[in-house]
């Protein structure tokens, strides 16, 4: 009889313990694995001009690691690149062609820089850089 009671107690205790362990084991730190963002850098020349073609190298420096990623794949005034989520310094320099409000076409050297841009969204991030003409 006492053996049966002890067995029952044992089973009860063991099942409580297993439950506790399951709860505790699942309460582990969740890794933050969402590393990358699809960043779109857009060049902004203002309302008076429409950018047609951009020929430039864009260098993005991660502010925390100083790791530099480069691309020249501009489509119109935008370039898309996959980056590690974080804060960046952006430097774009090259030539672009644009038309003004009268439709006249210009080809000019430009630079667009920013010392701090945030590209942290998991998924898509977008940022606009203002252009300054070099000539």
């Amino acid at each position, binding site marked *: 009889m006492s053996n049966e009671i*002890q067995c029952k107690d044992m089973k009860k205790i063991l099942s409580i313990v297993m439950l506790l362990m399951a709860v*505790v084991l699942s309460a582990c730190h969740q890794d933050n694995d969402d590393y990358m963002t699809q960043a779109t850098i857009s060049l902004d020349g203002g309302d008076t001009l429409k950018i047609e073609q951009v020929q430039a190298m864009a260098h993005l420096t991660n502010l*925390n690691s100083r790791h530099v990623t480069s691309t020249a794949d501009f489509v119109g005034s935008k370039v898309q690149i996959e980056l590690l989520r974080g804060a960046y310094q952006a430097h774009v320099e090259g030539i672009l062609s644009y038309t003004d409000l009268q439709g006249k076409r210009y080809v000019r050297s430009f630079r667009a820089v920013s010392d701090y841009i945030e590209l942290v969204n998991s998924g898509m991030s977008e940022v606009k850089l203002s252009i300054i003409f070099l000539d």
Partner: protein
Amino acid sequence: MEKKLHIILLLLCQFLMIEAATLDSVYTDRNSLWRYTRIEALQNPAMMTRAYLKSYTELSVQCDYRKQSDAFCLEQGTGFLMPEISAHSYVRLTPSSVVWGEAAYANGKCFDKVYNNVADMELLYPDVIADSIGGDTKRERYLFSGGYAAENGPWLIGGELKFRAEQEYRTYDPRMRSIVSDLTLKAGMARMVGKYRLGGHAEGNIYRQTADVDFYGETNGMGELQMTGLGTSYVRFSGSNRDIFYEGKGGAIGVDVTPDEESGWFGHLRHALHQYERLSDEYNAMPLTTLYRQQTSITVGWKRKTGNRDQAYLLHASYDKRASDEHVVGSASGQDYPILTDLTMYKQHRWDVYAAALYGCDSWHLLARTGLLSHRQSYAYEERKMEYARLYGELTVQWLKPVGKDLTLNLHAAGGYAGNISSKILMPYANMTPSITDYINHSYQYQKASYTQAELGIKADYQPTKWPVGVFGQLATRWQFCSESEHEGNLHLTLGIIF
């Protein structure tokens, strides 16, 4: 095959029994290799009521010395010299309650530590502050612990407190200084269920460390790296940011099943979670990284002790995971640095699975262990990996030999081999500086190596019946030979009194 082995051991046992003089059971209880089957259960303070047959107090002075021909692990250096004085005590207050305690003070030095300017690197890796110069360090440690356990009918309860204060420092550039305080509180209970004790315990831990590095020489000034794993560092806050502190907290729970007598099934399950946040003093207590550590282990075994023969078989698996989250810091406004997001850049998975068999006959014990160790580290971007796996085997022999009535010798010898069975490294070498490349390659060279170990030790306990106090001395040496043609020598010496 198994049957033949069993017969050989039986015959050996019979032979040895003829030779043996009588061993004191209290001495055997404290010193026998058989204690190996109870070590894990004793992590539960409630189980301490049955830890030892008799009360004892031990005061000793000891010294540990290690020297490696080349640092197997650059961060740990090429060795250490650690003298220590300590006191251990286990006192049975009443037949159903015990109290125990320990106090120790160590003051020594470590040699040639590089890429590591903190204390407790084994705890905090990879989130350490480091430089490539390094050097010898001085280390001072205070340890206090105490506990109480009691039995009442089928119930056992116990509690334990452990406190460690440590400082590690260097007296020449780069002058590192780390101060640690580490407090652990444990509470446990157990219940007699039939022939078994079923117990559970929980522990909580609070950890603090301040670490800073100074340069007194004007021309020596250089930057310190905030390491983030596998040679990477948090570049933005490396350099002149030389004052950091760690805030840690965590806990563990354990479940134990252990036979009341020395025969039966035993099992132990432990799950621990700790986190250590590294904060920068120079940037208004800004968190740089948080290390999350999960340690889970399970042991299942069976043992039997009949008369002067005993045997035990067990299987053990442990999993140790480290994940370091980097806090991505945005643009400062005034003194505040906003955290944009957290990314788990560094991960480490370590598995250790082994089977052990223990066989004892009177004063002899033989412990054989074989297992598999797998260690994998990775860093997310740019991708870095370092992995290795080892197959190992170990054999330990112990002989407790009484010499006359007053002297007992405890002799042990061990040998083992850990052979590398797989390894892998993936690094963006073209984007790494030469010093980091050397550091990584050195670490990998020793991680993927194979090691042969040999150990020899002798302990002598001398207590004539007229003496209220016994004296003891221990000398042990342990050697490791690495397949990279390097080696490590260890020496241990203890002198003490026991009563």
